[in-house]
């Protein structure tokens, strides 16, 4: 492993800071979803609040992946593997969208 003991000692504070950030992010996610004063537009819980909540979750996930999982300084081979999996997930979700938009079903069943 590339990380030497000296580098690891330096990173201890970073790990603690990221941990604290994740805790704060979690409280923020909960607050955005439940507290009325943080409601975007005041429409109640709607699409905008969903997107904000998922955005916060994505930031948290990026912190975990980038810093805890060392993805911010990983080798190229790993980046390619990970990128590949997202491509496949995209196609998987796209298949679902295709099935949703032009389903094969008996139209008389739902009467």
């Amino acid at each position, binding site marked *: 492993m590339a990380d030497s003991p000296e580098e690891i000692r330096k990173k201890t504070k970073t790990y603690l800071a990221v941990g604290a950030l994740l805790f704060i992010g979690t409280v923020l996610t909960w607050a955005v979803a439940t507290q009325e004063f943080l409601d975007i537009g005041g429409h109640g819980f709607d699409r905008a609040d969903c997107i904000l909540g998922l955005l916060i979750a994505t930031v948290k996930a990026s912190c975990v992946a980038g810093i805890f999982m060392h993805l911010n300084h990983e080798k190229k*081979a790993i980046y390619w593997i*990970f990128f590949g999996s997202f491509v496949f997930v995209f196609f998987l979700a796209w298949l679902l969208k295709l099935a949703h938009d032009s389903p094969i079903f008996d139209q008389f069943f739902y009467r």
Partner: protein
Amino acid sequence: MEIPFVVTPRKDTGLTNSKIAIWLFLASEVMLFGGFFSAYVYLRVGSSDPVGGYPWPERALPILPGLINTFILIASSVTVVFAWAALKLRQWGKFQAFMGFTVLCAFVFLGLKGIEYNVKFHHQALRTVDGAVIEGHLGYEKKEGVDAHAEAKEEDYVLNHHGKKIEENRINVEATGLTFNTVRFHKDWVEEILTEAGHHHSKITLASDLKLALKPGAAEETVLPAGTELSTEVLAKVADLHLKARANNADVRTEALRKAWDVAHETYPSKRDWQIAEKVAIDPKALEGKLMTEAPNLAFKVDPPAKLTFAPRDVKAGQAQSSLRDGTAIDGVLLESPMVFHAVDALDFRHLAMKAINKGLDPMAEVEKSWVLANSPELREIWEWHKGEIAKLEERLKQDYEMKGKSKREPTFTERYRVEWKDFAAKAEGKPRTEREGVIKLKEQFMGPNYDDRAAAHTFPELSVPRDQVAFDSKFTPAWNPFYAIYFTITGLHGLHVIGGALVLGYYLFRGKKMYLSNPEWLANRVEVGGLFWHFVDLVWIFLFPLLYLM
């Protein structure tokens, strides 16, 4: 011989074997969970479809257990990194401490998950024939003579064969006759029927002599006389004889059919099989003297008629005849078989309202006509209170729009038509709906409402629903709503990953010393990839929590 590239990275990729392997595995896991997340999105969006939609339990899960679980997993993610760092710095004691904390977090997470699942498995939901949904907890059957309204003690309850209390959701039949399928009968059910009949001092005896030809072509002889008492041994004995006869008769018929085909081939040598198939039939004379008597069913009479009870999922009830899932036919009148709620804690008219809107009717008017509001004064009172509160909410939102310049908003469909337990609690405590979050105690945030403590204030009314009003009932399980199906699937799969990760990390914690002493760098690499898996598990939860609990 040392395995290459477990400590020293490969020169071309710069990676050790375990690194490449774990990232390949995590890539496949991304696809696995990605599939489930996509499925969730489509189910969720599909539920709000104006034509084919259905009520979704949006934000119905208690948030606090999920929130605490998120904190626990984040903390364990931090400590697993520190455990790896301690190994790299050759600090065995610190490694043990951090790794121990990580594994402990895993078990706390699973414990909380278990509590959440258990609460759902005990929560009953019912959709009545008109589409109204009632949620709550069923009562348990009490012994005869016990006051139904007095505070019940443990000894007041009836226990089943397994020593457990019986939920008040049973189909009662006054049986005068039983016809068992000799091959498919379910032993446990036969034993229960016998026990129940015994309680009513009824005897279950064979209705008429059972006469079977026990050898091919032999005369029928009485195997069991009329009046033989029912037992699983009797049924098993007849099953044995029946199966022998069936096997013999099948062989005889097959042989006769073979001969008939041979004859047909000789008669029509140039024709193909499909051309002569209609002409081929078993000659009855060929079967004479070769058949044994089959006994697929065995009819018994119940004297005097006895009240038998069954779980709704096991029986197809009819007014004059009912049948069990094992093929047993029960002759007898269907008695009153209500579904009794000891505590109703939610009323949901969304399904009823949706059906009304689809038919072009006024949903509120249809709700007022529902069976539950017509037959339960307490639930009617709660519904009237709820309507008043929603009217106040509408007024407040209108004022916010006109006076404070906020965007226009109306009460949501869910707010208008669903009354949940916090509303019941707020009303009972005399608080307005806006303060309903404040009426929940800490324990209730995990376990749901405390029914015993709230009983004195009559917070959750009792309700007895006659069987003909029950359209569909289920606990909060996949059967009830696609949300619960995917909730249990995705959190269950995640939970299995937590167990797997805890086992691997626990192995390093308890069995790693030997490897630490011989090859510490290799152990550090193994702990690192174990940690990478653990972080992935945390990543999935970071998305799961808002998606399932907050949206």
